[in-house]
């Protein structure tokens, strides 16, 4: 039969706008960046250098030291988010979903609000709060007799990155909270009721029933955190500037890329090395997402009600 299946034009037509826009603003720039990283500065313009930029990035001790420093800081930034932001998010969601909590809507909104604030505001406000000169942090610690604990955290190489990671946690804790909250609400009441009948207390209910049911959401949150953290730039740039001081202690891949690509003060921008760093970042994120998709997500059990 010649006309076994009609050509289903409408699929293409409906997909086209999204595909076109996505291609124009995401796919083409991505390949443009990968392409740019294979060129170097020549006498009369860019010349093809193959993987030489990557050889410099990983082979030259000056570049590789900066790169591994940034990657290490980035990992620590991610670890703090995984260890602090996500457990707190789950805890808040569990508290919010409790039927006995009053003013749940108010708490939910209040905790979510920092997420919609601009990075510039968050960075500036926290810099002021933590400022040893004008900040309220030293005063508040003084009021409870703990002034000795105060240090100019953002200026000390050993604390600055952790302090900024915690600021970022403060800002974004609303997102895991909301996602987990939605997942918790979708657990049918009869499952919980059955558990109560069987004599499970609230604590055991959480560990044995709710947690397994929200694990897929936790997986999604982890991967969102991973991608978000490895693309992070704004907060560090706003709080510490492009040099990511003190002594590069807060330098993450995003700020390293910015400095290299656009240049800084007397340092001229180098789009080709910048693109090489961007490609390395893309590779790292791609690798992380693949590990998640193939090694973790396929093993997560899903339950249908």
């Amino acid at each position: 039969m010649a006309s076994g299946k009609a050509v289903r034009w409408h699929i293409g037509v409906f997909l086209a706008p999204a595909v076109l826009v996505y291609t124009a603003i995401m796919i083409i720039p991505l390949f443009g960046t990968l392409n740019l990283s294979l060129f170097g500065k020549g006498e009369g313009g860019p010349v093809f250098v193959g993987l030489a930029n990557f050889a410099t990035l990983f082979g030259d001790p000056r570049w590789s030291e900066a790169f591994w420093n940034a990657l290490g800081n980035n990992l620590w930034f991610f670890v703090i988010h995984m260890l602090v932001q996500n457990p707190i998010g789950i805890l808040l969601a569990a508290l919010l979903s409790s039927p006995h909590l009053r003013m749940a809507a108010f708490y939910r909104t209040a905790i979510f609000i920092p997420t919609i604030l601009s990075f510039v505001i968050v960075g500036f406000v926290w810099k002021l709060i933590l400022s040893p000169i004008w900040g309220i942090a030293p005063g508040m610690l003084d009021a409870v007799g703990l002034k000795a604990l105060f240090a100019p955290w953002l200026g000390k190489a050993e604390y600055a990155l952790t302090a900024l990671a915690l600021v970022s946690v403060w800002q974004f804790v609303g997102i895991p909270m909301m996602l987990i909250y939605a997942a918790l609400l979708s657990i049918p009441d009869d499952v919980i009721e059955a558990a109560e009948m069987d004599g499970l207390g609230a604590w055991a209910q959480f560990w044995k029933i709710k947690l397994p049911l929200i694990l897929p959401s936790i997986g999604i949150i982890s991967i969102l955190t991973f991608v978000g953290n490895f693309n992070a730039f704004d907060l560090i740039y706003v709080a510490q500037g492009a040099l990511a001081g003190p002594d590069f202690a807060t330098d993450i891949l995003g700020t390293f890329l910015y400095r290299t690509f656009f240049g800084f003060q007397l340092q001229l921008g180098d789009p080709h090395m910048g693109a090489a760093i961007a490609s390395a970042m893309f590779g790292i994120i791609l690798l992380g997402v693949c590990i998640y998709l193939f090694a973790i997500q396929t093993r997560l059990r899903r339950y249908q009600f």
Partner: protein
Amino acid sequence: MKKTFRIALLTSTLLSGAAWAEDVTLTIESWRNDDLTIWQDKLIPAFEAAHPGIKVVFAPTAPAEYNAALNSKLAAGSAGDLITCRPFDASLELYNQGNLADLSGLAAMANFSPVAKSAWQTDDGAATFCVPMASVIHGFIYNADAFEALGIAPPTTNDEFFAALDKIKADGTYIPMAMGTNDQWEAATMGYNNIGPNYWKGEEGRLALIKGEQKLTDPQWVAPYEQLARWKDYLGDGFEAQTYPDSQNLFTLGRAAIYPAGSWEIAGFNAQATFKMGAFAPPVQAAGDTCYISDHTDIAMGMNAKTAHPEETKTFLEWVGSSEFADLYANSLPGFFSLNSTPVTMTDPLAQEFVSWRGKCQSTIRSTYQILSRGTPNLENETWNASANVIKGTETPADAGARLQAGLDSWYKPAN
């Protein structure tokens, strides 16, 4: 109907085109967003009054973003007609890329000395691509009321300098010195390159470093770091997290007695501070030594080579090179000292104090700016980092010198 509509559209386009042709609008790219009102209220009206038909718009970017933003705009072809030039390599690179036009032919260039032009010339001096506007001088601004109350005279030697700091510290009313290391650049610009020329003897040391005859590990280059390391005890609590605006505010609020400064602070400090201020030059090692100051050629203006209005842009630049502009600019912005050969009379006492050092001391420019910050690692940025580390005490002066020299050696081969 459709046709009428088309004609209407076409006519309106043509009409608006004609309206545009009457006035040419020139846009200035700059990092001096602090100067916006001065350009809008004083400089641009003065130019427009004398040159009908040319409108000028001053469109500054934040200082830290300027270089990056400008490069992107130039690459995209959306940069303004007039480009405010950073000194040395940043602008030289723009010229080599064909983004800045050669301005050697401007009549106004005759108004500037070779030293004034050196920051905006090719290495062989054949082409000048920006009209010099101003230089800034480094030194220390002090709270004169505090000095008087404590009975301190402005120090001239190192020993007097630290004696004064000790006295202020012992008294306890004031933080001896307002500086932080959070933003890093103050430590290098207002610290290392402020006091350093007295040790490396200004131009002599700077040129010897470029020729490779001196090293950053030599005593005259490490000694300023040793001085900086001593500053730590006189800075305020938590100086590690103190930013540049924090330091400015500490000083103008009268909480700190001495501020390591660049002369560009004068206008802002005059507006903010309610006490009397004075200034002293970087202290020398022993009484009677020749003093050296950093009189840094800092700002100039060039022409975007791809401007649509080259003639009008040149007219504006001729005006920037005139003594009329020099007079207006230096007096609107005390602390930016004109590079024009015609002497400018300034009325601000603090600015007069700074500029008077030009008569007593030898002038030089910042050691890292010419040629030495061309490669990776970038010597200027490394100097920021090293100066901040030395003040915090996380790196010894000798280590800092060795690290910077090793970084420089990795890409810089002196010409001879």
